[in-house]
C-alpha cells in the first residue's frame, strides 16, 4: 500500500504530510534558538560588564550580510513561484542565485570570523564572544544545511520535476520555508548581537 497524502492534500486537514512535517521541525528549531536567546538574556542580566556589540563586531559587514540573506529569501520565493508557473528554466536561475547568496553570506562570515581569531577574540575571552560564536556558528550550520538541500534540489533532485512536478514543487516550497526560517533567525541575531 502506498502512503497517502505525500503529495495530495488530505481533505479534512487541507495539508500534505511534508508541509506539516516541516512546520513541526521549524517549531522545534524555534525552541532551539529560543533557548539560546533566553540564555543570552540570563547571562547578560547576570553580568557585571557586557560590551556593546558594535564595539567588538563589524557592523557594516553584518549589514551587508543581512541584505544578502534577505535577497536570498526573495529569490527563494521566486524559484518556487517559477515552478508554480511551469517555468523550470527560471527555477534553475533563481534557485542558483539563492545558493550563491548563501555562499556569499558564508564568505563574509568567514572574513568576520578570521578577523576575530586573528585578534585573539575567542569564545574563551569572554561570555559575550562565547554566545556570539555559539549563536552565529549554529546559524551558520543551518545556512550550510539549507544550501545542501537547495543544492540537491537544484542538481540531482531536480529529476523529480519530470516524473512528478507537483511533488517537486512541494519539496522546493518546504526547503524554502526552512530557508526563510534561517533568514528570520539572522534578523533576530543581527540586532541582538551587533547593535544592542
Amino acid at each position, binding site marked *: *500500500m*502506498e*502512503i*497517502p*497524502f*505525500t503529495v495530495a492534500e*488530505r481533505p479534512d*486537514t487541507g*495539508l*500534505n*504530510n511534508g508541509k*506539516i*512535517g516541516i512546520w*513541526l*521541525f521549524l*517549531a*522545534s*528549531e524555534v*525552541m*532551539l*534558538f*529560543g*533557548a*539560546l536567546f533566553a*540564555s543570552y538574556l*540570563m*547571562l547578560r542580566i*547576570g*553580568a*557585571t560588564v557586557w560590551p556593546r556589540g558594535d564595539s567588538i563586531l563589524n557592523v557594516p559587514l553584518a549589514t551587508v550580510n543581512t541584505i544578502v540573506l534577505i535577497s536570498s529569501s526573495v529569490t527563494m520565493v521566486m524559484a518556487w513561484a517559477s515552478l508554480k508557473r511551469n517555468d523550470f528554466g527560471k527555477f534553475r536561475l533563481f534557485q542558483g542565485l539563492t545558493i550563491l547568496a548563501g555562499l556569499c553570506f558564508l564568505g563574509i562570515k568567514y572574513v568576520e570570523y578570521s578577523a576575530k581569531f586573528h585578534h585573539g577574540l*575567542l*569564545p*574563551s*575571552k*569572554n*561570555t559575550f*564572544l*562565547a*554566545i556570539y*560564536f*555559539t549563536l552565529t556558528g*549554529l546559524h551558520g550550520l543551518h545556512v550550510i544545511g539549507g544550501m545542501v538541500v537547495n543544492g540537491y534540489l537544484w542538481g540531482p533532485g531536480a529529476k523529480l520535476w519530470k516524473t512528478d512536478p507537483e511533488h517537486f514543487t512541494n519539496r522546493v516550497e518546504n526547503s524554502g520555508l526552512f530557508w526563510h526560517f534561517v533568514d528570520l533567525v539572522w534578523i533576530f541575531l543581527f540586532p541582538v548581537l551587533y547593535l544592542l
Partner: protein
Amino acid sequence: MATLETAPAHEAEHEHAEHQHLGFWRQYVFSTDHKVIGIQYAVTGLLFLLFGFGLVTLMRWQLAYPGRALPWLGKLLGDTRMPGGAMLPEFYNQLGAMHGTIMVFMGVVPLAVGGFGNFVLPLQIGAPDMAFPKINMASYWSYFLGGMTMLASFFVPGGAAQSGWTSYAPLSVIAGQGQTMWLFGMIFLITSSLLGSINFIVTTIQLRANGLSFFRLPFFVWSQLVTSFLLLLAFPPLEAAGVMQLMDRLGGSSFFMPSGLVVSGQVAAYTGGGNPLLWQHLFWFLAHPEVYVLILPAFGIVSEVIANNTRKPLWGYKIMVYSLWFLGFMSFIVWAHHMFFTGMGTTMATFFQTTTMIISIPSVVILSALFLSLWGGSIRFNTPMLFALAFLPMFGIGGLTGLPLGLSAADIPLHDTYYVIGHFHYVVAPGTIFALFAGIYHWFPKATGRKMSERLGKLHFWPSLIFINGIFMPMFILGLAGVSRRLYDGGASYDFAKPVLHWNVFMSISAWGLALAQIPFIINFFMSIKRGEKVGQNPWEATTLEWAAPSPPPHGNFTTAPVAYRGPYEYSVPGHPTDFTPQFLSAQQQATS
C-alpha cells in the same frame, strides 16, 4: 464473526512475496517498515534496560557492603574501576550517572515511544506505515549511534560520565572525557527523538483511516501524540544546553562557569562570568516534560489493556483526553520545582509550587478514571492485566509521594535524599516499566502471531511485584531519616544514618531478587516466538483497529484498507451478540454476525 477473518489468502501471499524481495539487510536491518523499526527499538531498549539494571545491581553491592571486595569482579573490570574487587568512588559515580542516563534516554523512552509507538500507532489508526518511513529508519539509527557512543564512553580514559544523569555544571564541565562522549551521545539521541516525534505527529494527523475521527482514536494514540509534542518542543533546549556545555569543555568558554571558581584548591582556568544555574534551567526545561514522556505512554498502554480486560468502555474517555493535553501543556511550566534549593527566591518558588500542585490534578483525573474503569467489569486476570492493575497503585504511590517535594517548604528536608529516589522510581519502575511489560504481553501476539506463556508470565509478575516494593519502599524510610542520595558508602560515614542503614542490605537483596525474577520473562520472550500458542488476528477479542490486521501484519499492514465505524472501546454493548464490537465491524457485518 467469520466475516472478519476473510483476508483474501492469495493477496496475503502476494504481499508476502513482495516482502521477500527486499533481502535480509533491507528487511531486518535497514528496514523502513514501522513494525520492524518498532521491534528494533523495543529489543534495543530492552537490552539497555537490562544493562542499566545490571549497573545498579553493582551499585547495590557497594551500598549494602561498603568497601567489601569482590575479587572475581575486580579481575573482570580492572584496576581503574574495582582494584582488587573494591569499588572506586569514581566508578560508583560512573555507574550512577550512566544508570540514570541509560534507563531514561536509552531504555524507557525508546521502548515506550520508539518501540510501542512505532509498532502500535500506525496499526491502531489503520495506516499502511508511518508518514515518513525513511526518516523513521534514520531515527532508529541515530538512537543506535547515540547508545553506542554512551557505551563506548566507559572505555575512554577516566571512564564514563560521572556527574549524575543531570550533568550539573560546573562539575560536569571540569569532569573527564566521558562527559564529552555523554554530550555527543545526547545529541544523537535528541536528533533521534526529534525525527521520531515529527513522524508520529504527522502520521496521527494525516494517516488516520476513513471514519477514524479524532475522538474515535484509542487513548494510546492520544498519549503518543501528546508525548511527541513534548519531545518535539522540550528536547531542543537541552540540545542548546549541550552545545553550550561542549563549548565550555572544548572551546574554553564560560557559559556555566562562575567567576572565581576554585577547583581542588586552585583557581580554575576559566574566564568566568557564566551561570551554573543556566544549565539547571535548561536541563529541567527538558527533563520535567521528559518525566511525562516517561509516564504518558504508560497511561496509554494501561488504558488499552484495562479496557480490553474489563470488557467495559474506559470510564471518562473524553475527560482523560482533555486531562492528557492539559498535563502536556502544564509540564512546560513546572521545571523549577527541581530547583527550590538554588536560591531563586520565594516568588519564583511560589509560582512553580502552584503550577506543580495544578499539574497533579489531571494526573489524578486520569488515574481515577482508570480505577473507575474497573468498577463492575468482568475482569480477565491474565498477565498483561496483572501488570496493568499493579501499575495503578504503584503509580499512585509514586505520584502522591511527589506532592511534598513539589511544595517548597516541605521540599527542604526531603531534597536530594533517598525519599526523592523512592518517589521517582515508584513512578518509573513499578509504574512505567510495569506498564511496558503489560504492553509487551498484550501486543506480543500481534507482533509474532503467538501468545506468551501465561504460567511464566505469572512467575515473572508476582516476584517482580514483591521485590520491586522491597527495593523502593525502604527508600522512603532512609529519606525521611535524612540520608542523602549519591553517597558512595550509602551513608555509612554519617552517625545519624546508622539506625536505618540496615535497610540497605534488604534493598540490595530485593534488587538481586528482582534481577532473578526477570529470567522467566527472558525465557518466555524467546521461547514464545517459536513455541507460543498460535493465535488469529484478534486473540484478546479487542475492539481497536490493530486487531483487524493479520498477526503478524504483512508489509503494508492491512489486507484491505480498514474503516472505523465507531468509538474505540465498545465493549459489552447491549444487544450485540458478543461482548465486544470492533471499530472495524460495519453495520452490515454486525447484522449478519
